[in-house]
């Protein structure tokens, strides 16, 4: 056990007999140091492996989710298209609704007409039609709806008809908001035999705000 590197000291060869010497290492410091070093190394390796495993797991789930995404993409695209289509259509519908702006519902109209029908007056036909009125404002053209209700019928005498017309004009239902209302009548000569008068009452509604008072005859 020469501690002088490889060189045996001059004039001083070592004659000890190693094989018969007792083992005197009490504290195996080498062992302990090695043990600690190995434990530290193992610890570091285990941490590393744990991290790697976590990374692997995350990668796998990422891959899985990406496959799912890819699978869903086609469906998603079509759904998106549908959604867009729906949105556009809904918008159109809204626009249309807004555009049409029906003053009242048909059933309400019928009920009102039925209520307003005086005795001695008969409805033979009720027609409801609508038109699109284009107005030019400067360079732009705006379209508005116009509605026409034509009531054809017979009446016993003119007074009833006049009262009926007044009643129509006074009807709150017909005086719909945002519409200018005009009530016109057209009378045919009375029947010679029966004395019944055929008439045509047409109520036109045009979008717009009415001046105070009723609209006059056209």
């Amino acid at each position, binding site marked *: 056990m020469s501690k002088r590197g490889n060189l045996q*000291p001059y*004039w001083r060869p070592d004659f*000890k*007999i190693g094989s*018969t010497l007792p083992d005197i290492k009490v504290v195996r410091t080498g062992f302990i140091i090695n043990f600690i070093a190995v434990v530290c190394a193992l610890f570091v390796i285990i941490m590393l492996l744990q991290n790697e495993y976590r990374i692997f797991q995350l990668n796998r789930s990422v891959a899985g989710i990406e496959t799912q995404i890819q699978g869903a993409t086609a469906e998603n695209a079509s759904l998106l298209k549908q959604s867009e289509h729906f949105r556009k259509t809904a918008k159109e519908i809204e626009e249309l609704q807004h555009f049409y702006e029906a003053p009242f519902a048909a059933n309400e109209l019928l009920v009102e007409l039925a209520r307003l029908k005086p005795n001695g007056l008969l409805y033979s036909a009720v027609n409801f039609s609508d038109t699109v009125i284009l107005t030019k404002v400067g360079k732009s053209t705006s379209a508005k709806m116009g509605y026409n209700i034509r009531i054809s019928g017979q009446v016993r005498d003119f007074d009833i008809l006049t009262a009926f017309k007044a009643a129509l004009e006074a009807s709150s239902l017909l005086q719909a908001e945002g519409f200018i209302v005009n009530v016109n009548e057209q009378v045919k000569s009375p029947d010679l035999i029966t004395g019944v008068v055929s008439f045509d009452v047409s109520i036109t509604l045009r979008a717009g705000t009415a001046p105070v008072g009723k609209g006059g005859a056209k």
Partner: protein
Amino acid sequence: MLKPKTKGLFIDVSEFSILAVRTSGYKLPIVIEEIAELPIAQDCSPADVRLFLEQLVDFKGAAYYVARCGIYPDGRFVRYYEVESLAKLKKPNFLADVIQSEFGVDPASHSVSILDARDGSDLDLEKGLSKHLVFCGAPSSAFQQAQDQLLEYGLYPERMELSTSTTLGGICDYVKLNRIAAPVLYIELASEVANFFILNKGRVEVARPVAFGLDSIYPLLQRELGLKDETSARKLFFSNTFDFAEMGPKLLRRLVKELQASAGFYEVQTGLTIERVFLSALPQNLSWIAQTVSDSMGVEVLKPDIGSWLEGLNVSLAEGVELSNLGPRWMSVFSLMGEFNLRQEDLSE
């Protein structure tokens, strides 16, 4: 993870005493904190040694303290050999044959290290070939025995070195540091054997055993003083009570003769004159031996200035540590701290 740094413990276990030094650690720079010596008595048990060590270092309740040890195993040898040609070195088994034939040592049962005699570096057969070799080692069983004994003392040898060779390295380095130009005679005298070396400018040029040990002195001493037996002679020999200055030359005559012959041969061969002698390992009360050899051979006793030598090796002293009254035998334990390859001195030749 930060725990107080474990202190370094350098131990030299000879047959005479255990020299121990506690330092700041094993890595340079080293700070010497405390020095202690335990003379080995006849009845010294491992428990006594352990007790001695526990006063020097804190075992912290452990069975062993990690130390760097220098030992003197029985049958040790440090031999110089000059190879005739570098080509021979490359032959397989050549070195084993040399060990067997030249030194009478069986390579199979011995643990041997081969060094370059010029600087003490390990012989590398692939590069840096040198013809001048120093073989050092001991029987493997002796090393095992020494190691077991260290373990019994409660020492775990992080390094177990041949003190003879380590001290030789220390002396070579000291010679280099102090630029001692003349050759130095280095003698390791133990109970059963003596080894002697001749160093020239830090290179080993002679390394041989001498068939002379301290044990051979006791019969002589017994006869001279008319003592009862060798045991009492031995006791007297190691005691501090007798002045051996007068009787010295007679007791050591055989050794001195042998040394003179070898030294003379060397001087004639090289034309150089040996000026100093260094004796290692011997305890303080045997310092008369060095003096006797010095007087008989007309050479100076080398008493190394350990402090300055250590500074050059990046080993410093803590406060209160005194080296001045330490004998030359302490070179062995301090050499254990020496990283001699760091000495950058380049000597010509």
